[in-house]
């Protein structure tokens, strides 16, 4: 009888374990080891090879629903670029909240770099409807798509944008994407203009981008929280001063998120194993009881 009770435990016990397993790692980082995979390392090394003369185009192609996965990628890449003095042009092509995400990430990161000047070291051009058309037009000139930046300043008045005319002046495109927009960056922009493209994708869509990596249409791939945490780890290992930043309790990072993911997965798997063990014990007991009765 006792065994039956174990199989049918109150589902709220499972809920409680998941709640704790998600919250605790966010508040008290465990710091599970993170090993990096080649697609993440290749993006990291690409950024490492760039310097203050170079320009990265960072496109926010996701909305609030996938922010837990995409935002840490954006933050780690932006910090990496700013630390190396790389110039960054930020745009948003995702209709539902892309520009909000971009604004929030910039507002979060730029105070860490008081020496940077908006318009000189980075530019925030805002959102444009119709991603595919916008991508093609930016190959001609950014100003065709974004006549003014997000603060309504004409592009001609922005020093950085005076020398960044089109993709020819961009050394790397990074798209943080929740859906098909990443494919367009590879199929339209990389194929036509040759600018290297890297993608930070959600875990759900990451597998289909392996084909793009193999064909060389993408030079790097961060898949979901796992990929984001790998990038964070690489940045921290190369620039140790980030460790302090990433360990602060009030900051959400992919490393913490990945801890929570791993713990939750472990909890679920443990419950499955537990359920099956008890199930097996019940069956053995019943079989023995059956033999006795017979």
């Amino acid at each position, binding site marked *: 009888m006792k065994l039956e009770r174990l199989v049918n435990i109150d*589902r709220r016990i*499972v*809920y409680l*374990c*998941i*709640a704790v397993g*998600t919250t605790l790692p966010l508040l008290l980082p465990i710091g*599970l*080891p*993170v*090993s990096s995979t080649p697609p993440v390392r290749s993006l990291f090394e690409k950024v490492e090879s760039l310097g203050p003369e170079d320009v990265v185009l960072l496109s926010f192609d996701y909305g*609030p*629903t996938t922010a837990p996965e995409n935002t840490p990628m954006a933050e780690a890449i932006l910090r990496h670029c700013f630390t190396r003095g790389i110039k960054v042009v930020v745009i948003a092509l995702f209709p539902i909240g892309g520009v909000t995400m971009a604004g929030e990430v910039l507002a979060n990161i730029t105070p860490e770099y008081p020496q940077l000047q908006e318009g000189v070291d980075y530019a925030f051009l805002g959102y444009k409807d119709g991603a595919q058309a916008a991508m093609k037009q930016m190959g001609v000139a950014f100003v065709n798509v974004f006549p003014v930046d997000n603060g309504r300043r004409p592009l001609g008045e922005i020093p950085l944008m005076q020398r960044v005319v089109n993709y020819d002046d961009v050394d790397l495109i990074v798209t943080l994407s929740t859906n098909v927009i990443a494919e367009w960056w590879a199929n339209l922009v990389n194929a036509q203009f040759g600018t290297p493209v890297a993608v930070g994708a959600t*875990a759900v869509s990451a*597998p289909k981008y*392996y084909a793009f990596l193999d064909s060389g249409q993408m030079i790097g791939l961060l898949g979901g929280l*796992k990929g984001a945490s790998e990038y964070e780890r690489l940045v921290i290992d190369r620039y140790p001063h980030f460790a302090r930043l990433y360990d602060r309790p009030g900051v959400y990072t992919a490393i913490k998120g*990945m801890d929570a*993911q*791993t713990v*939750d*997965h*472990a*909890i*679920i*798997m443990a*419950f*499955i194993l*537990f*359920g*099956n063990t008890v*199930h*097996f014990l019940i069956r053995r007991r019943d079989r023995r009881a059956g033999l006795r009765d017979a």
Partner: protein
Amino acid sequence: MFWKLRLPLALTFIVGLVPIVTFFLSTQAPVIGPAVQFARDRVERYMVIIAGFALLLGVVSVVQGSVRKIERRRPGWPFAASLLAGLVVMGAFGILSAMRVGPFQGLLTAPDGGMTPFFWMTRNLFNPLQAAMFSLLAFYIASAAFRAFRVRNVEATILLIAAFIVMAGRTPLGEYAFGWLPGGERWLPAVTDWIMTVPNAAAQRGVIIGAALGAASLSLRVILGIERSYLGTTEK
């Protein structure tokens, strides 16, 4: 009887064939080209408008139901009141924005770039409620996995093993599992990828082909007037 049953059925037959026939025709075709163009461009827009009108039917049903509940003081009537309050406030902001009355210029962003009341409600009431409800899935997926994944028979065991491998392979757990063997940390992630791209794809493809045939067959039944449950009418 003719008007109530035969007219809708005749319309169904004619309107249903239009997209099928025009699908294969060219908009460049002589004589019928403009008609093909019309069917492709305009009709779709018409349908969107009809669907727009339908929403009010639902609103009427909700208001009637809630008012009845409040009037008769049925159990839980205060909740019907909070429903109506939410509906009236949010709906009013929406309609005023559509009519561009007074300060309600624009639905989500005011002309000065600030937040409209509609947007404030969306961001601080509507979106958090959506996200909270959506995130309950993390709890439910765990309890469903615990209860359902048992070694009962061959089918259930296959289900369990596949789920288990993929769950492990998607996190660092998969790397730890065989990490002590040379190259072992790649094993489970590789098996996960293989399951997703080969057997899983085969199963999905089989389901999709079958379901598409079923859907096409249903279409044909509706166009021919054999299936008409949705009209609420039978011939008997």
